[in-house]
Every structure is written in structure tokens, then in C-alpha cells.
């Protein structure tokens, strides 16, 4: 079996933005990751179930409709509960309502247990670079 690092990706909550997640899927695969794409309207439990079964290295949460903050609460705690100790958690997109200073938003999500937080307009390359850093890929 390949030694590729494994990612679980998807758009959280009642969010139906279906295009961006496909672009990310391709970008991550292109960059050498093994991707499990859960698509849109993904619940926290679905990310966790997929990560457990595939032994994923990271869960990548996308949110584009502004309700990400509510949707993401408690995900880290549930991961801990499911035995996914120290799994990498990323979140990105239009993750909060309105225009708020990004450093405050980042701070809030980091306190929720996310390792990296990405604002609107982040390029896939930037996320891939961070992943390679965090997963020690040369």
C-alpha cells in the first residue's frame, strides 16, 4: 500500500457549496495526498467516522456560508473521544459571519482545537505547504 498521507475533506454543516471542495480534492491529490472527499453537508460525526476507518492524518473542514463557527464547535473534543488523538484539524473558507478581523477569527478557531485556520481567498498551494510542514513531508 502507498505511504501517502491521508486526508479527509468536506464542507461542514448545512452548506451546499459543491465546487470548491472538488477543486481542493484535485489539488490535494495532485500534491500526492490520498483524499477521502465527503462532499457537502457533512456532519462532525461523518468526518470522524471516515477518519477512523481510513486512519487519516488530517481532517480538512471547509465552510463557505458563514456558519462555520457553530458547526465546528466540539469537533476536537469528539475526535479525542473517538480515539483520534492529536489528529491534524484544519479549517478554511468564509468561516464566520460578516467581516471580522482575521487574527481574531484565527484565535477563536485555534482555541477550539484547530491546528490551522485559513481565511477567504487562500490558495490550495498555501494549505498544501502547511500540510507538508505539519506532516513532515519533504
Amino acid at each position, binding site marked *: 500500500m*502507498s505511504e501517502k498521507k491521508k486526508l*479527509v475533506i468536506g464542507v461542514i454543516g448545512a*452548506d*451546499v457549496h459543491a465546487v470548491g471542495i472538488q477543486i481542493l480534492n484535485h489539488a490535494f491529490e495532485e500534491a500526492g495526498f490520498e483524499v477521502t472527499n465527503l462532499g457537502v*453537508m457533512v456532519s462532525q460525526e461523518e468526518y470522524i*467516522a*471516515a477518519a477512523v*476507518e*481510513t486512519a*487519516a492524518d488530517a481532517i480538512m473542514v471547509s465552510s463557505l456560508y458563514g456558519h462555520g463557527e457553530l458547526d465546528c464547535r466540539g469537533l476536537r473534543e469528539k475526535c479525542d473521544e473517538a480515539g483520534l488523538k492529536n489528529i491534524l484539524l484544519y479549517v478554511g473558507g468564509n468561516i464566520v459571519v460578516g467581516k471580522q478581523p482575521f487574527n481574531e477569527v484565527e484565535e477563536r478557531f485555534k482555541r477550539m482545537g484547530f491546528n490551522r485556520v485559513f481565511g477567504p481567498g487562500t490558495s490550495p498551494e498555501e494549505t498544501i505547504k502547511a500540510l507538508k510542514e505539519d506532516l513532515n513531508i519533504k
Partner: protein
Amino acid sequence: MKPILMIDFGSTNTKVTAVDLEQEKLLGTAASYTTVQTDVNEGLNNALALLSEKIGTLEYEHRYACSSAAGGLRMISCGLVPELTAEAARQASLGAGAKVMKVYSYQLTEDDAEEIEQLSPDIFLLTGGTDGGNRDSIIENARILATIPKDFPIVVAGNRTAARTCEKILTEAGKQVRVCENVMPKFNQLNIQPAQNEIRQVFLERIIKAKGLSQASQLISGIMMPTPAAVLAAMELLSKGTEKQSGLGELVAVDVGGATTDIYSMTDGLPDRLNTVMKGLPEPFAKRTVEGDIGMRYSAGGIVEAAGIAAVCQLSGLSEERVNQLMELIITHTDTMPTTEELVKLDFALASLAVKTGVSRHAGTLEKVYTPIGEAFMQTGKDLSRVNKIIITGGSLIHAGNVDRIAACGLYDMTEPASLRPQRAEILVDKQYILSAMGLLSQYEPDIALKIMKKELESYGIAE
């Protein structure tokens, strides 16, 4: 004339079905009590004698058999996440015609091991992890299984990177192990055929002997398969057709027995709206579910529990007190036939609610979700709403009066709008009780089996 014989060793009755391959028609059927405790041939010979009375004594060129005698194929399966590999393992077992006694997920415990030992399955299906995914769980579970001092064969169909390790652990413990492809090689990708093939092999090699059917198998020229697997094969053929003949298309089949209710559906069941998101495991085209708590006699109590006593009273027109009295009678005397007017009414109510409950549990559901950018739908399971054929089989239904009204209870119901049951369907009844026999025949002569089914299934019109 080129007669062949199909035999179905059922838990109560041994049924024989004779077909003429030359004229491509059904010659006759007969049934007699199954005698698995002594010698199964006894019951078989009794049934054959009855058949001879009807159609004369014939020299059968071939004899094919299926069996659900002696408890059927009793299986336990195990996976990692309940909604993922554990569910895939359950699907694989049910599709192979098994009676699934228990499904475990995550790590097996010592208590589980004791329970497994007690249940003593015919086959254990061990899965867990996608290919290259989680290895620890399935390996740990293999270790637990290795400690159980019971001699049941184990089919390993999990993460391929862990398969060899599991095989080694179990073989060293003296278990009979068969390894095959993962039931879920990639996340949410169902791959249950290889596991089903292994289950079938084990069934042929070991189970038949263990169930005392081997004396009979000497007289039989081919395929012993579990009866539900035969019915599933018949339904798939009836739906898809062959190269030469078209099938009936998408369909649902209902088999209400004394102890369990089996539901089959032949459809992809995909959503027909654009704004619908599918959730959960993809569904196999040919799907079987078994409701172990729903049946006309042994499990009659389960029907009342699921549907409520009020529904039974309403449909039967009997008082609650009377229903309770009669229920006690049929559950303690499971061979009670509907000989009085009251029992006929009660059986009608029970059968209707068994069909309703069974099909409801089999069908998918549609949930409306309000999102900030408008309304969307989430579908879990199969959408049966456009399926337009319902096949009715099983001893307790095919001879019942009002079978069309009973079947109609499997249809869409305004009071449960989320349940994706068929909207409108033609009711076809397996009057001759030949579906399992046709499933056997389909393995050799699919065209003839299809032709006979099309001819023998009796239409009761369209219900909506």
C-alpha cells in the same frame, strides 16, 4: 420432456418444484415437513411422493437444492465504524443469504468473545479499515477471536494491509480462515461480492455437512445455497432480465414468514431531484434486509411492538382485549392456522403491519433541510418511490385473502412523508411459491427461470 427438480429445505417445510426444460414450464410443486432431526431424505421423499401423485413419477435429470433448515446460515459480522465497514459487513452477510445474529463494531471485548462463543455462529465475517486505512482494530479483533474455543470458520474481508496478519493469528489458533478482498476498499465504496463468494464456499464445504444435509447432497447434482440467496438471485433475474428477454425492471419483494420478514429491492434507488445530497453507504442494486422481530407467529409480538396495538385493533376490527387473547394463542401455538373468522381478521392486520413495517425499514428516508441558500434534501438509503412492482411471496401471504390490500400497506403513506416507499405499484403474487426454486434454476437456465416466473406470478392489479 426433460424434467428437473428443485428442492428447498425450509425450516418447516421441504418444498419440491418440478420444471420441464424442454417445454420451459412448471410441472408442479409439493411440500412436506422437513425432517432435519432424523434424516432430511425422509421429508424429501414424502414431498416427492406427493409430487408424484400430482404429476406422475418422473426421472429427473438434475436435482438442485437450497436450504434454510436447521436455523439457516447463522452469521456474526464485525467491522470498525458502525455506519461504515460494520454496515458493509452486514450487507455482505445478508446478501449471501445469512441470518445475521449480531453485528459488532470497534474493538471486540472479552464480554463480546463470550457472547460469540455462546451464539456459536456458522460463519464469522471479520472486517475493518479501508485498504491502507486502520489496521489496529481488525488485528486486535482477530486476536480476540483467536481466544474463542469454538470451531467456526472466519472470513477475513478487511484492510488488505492487515489481512495476512489476521490470517496468521487465526490460523495459529487453529481456526479455519479464508481471506478475500475488503468489503470497503475505499471510503464509502461497497465491495461485497468477494466476501459473499467466500461465504458461499464455506457454506458448501462445511455448513451443509454440519446441518445434516450431506446425506441429501449425494442425491443432488448441484448448488446448495442458502434459500434467501436463491430468492435474491431470482429477484435480480426477474428485474434485470437476460440477453434474450427483458426483465420487469425495478421491483420490491416481500416475504413475511412466521419468525422473520425478508424484504428485497432491485433498484439503485438514487435520488431523482437535483438538490438532494446522498448520505450514508452506497446501496447495492440487489438489496436484502431481514426483520428478525417481525413475523406472523413466533415474532407476532414484534409487530404489535413496532406498529402499536391500536393499529392492530383498527385493521382487524377486534377489541384490544380480544387481540391480546388471540395474540397469546398464536405466539404459544405457532402452528395455529387462521381457521376462525377472528383469526383471519387478526392475520390480515398482522400481515398488513408486517409489510408496512418491513418495507418502511428497508426503504430510505428523505429529510428536508433549510440552508442559508435555500431548501435542500438529504437522502439516506434507497429511494423506492418510483418502483412500480411489488412481489409477494411466503407461505403466510400467498394464501391469505385480501393479499392485494396487504401488499398495498408497503406503499407510500401520507402520514409518513419522509419514508421513500413506492408510490404506485402492480402487485404480483408468487401463488405457486416457486421463487427460491427459480433462483436455483437461474444459475443454470436463466431464460427458462425468467419465463416461468413471468408466467406464474399472478397480477392482482395496481395499488396506490
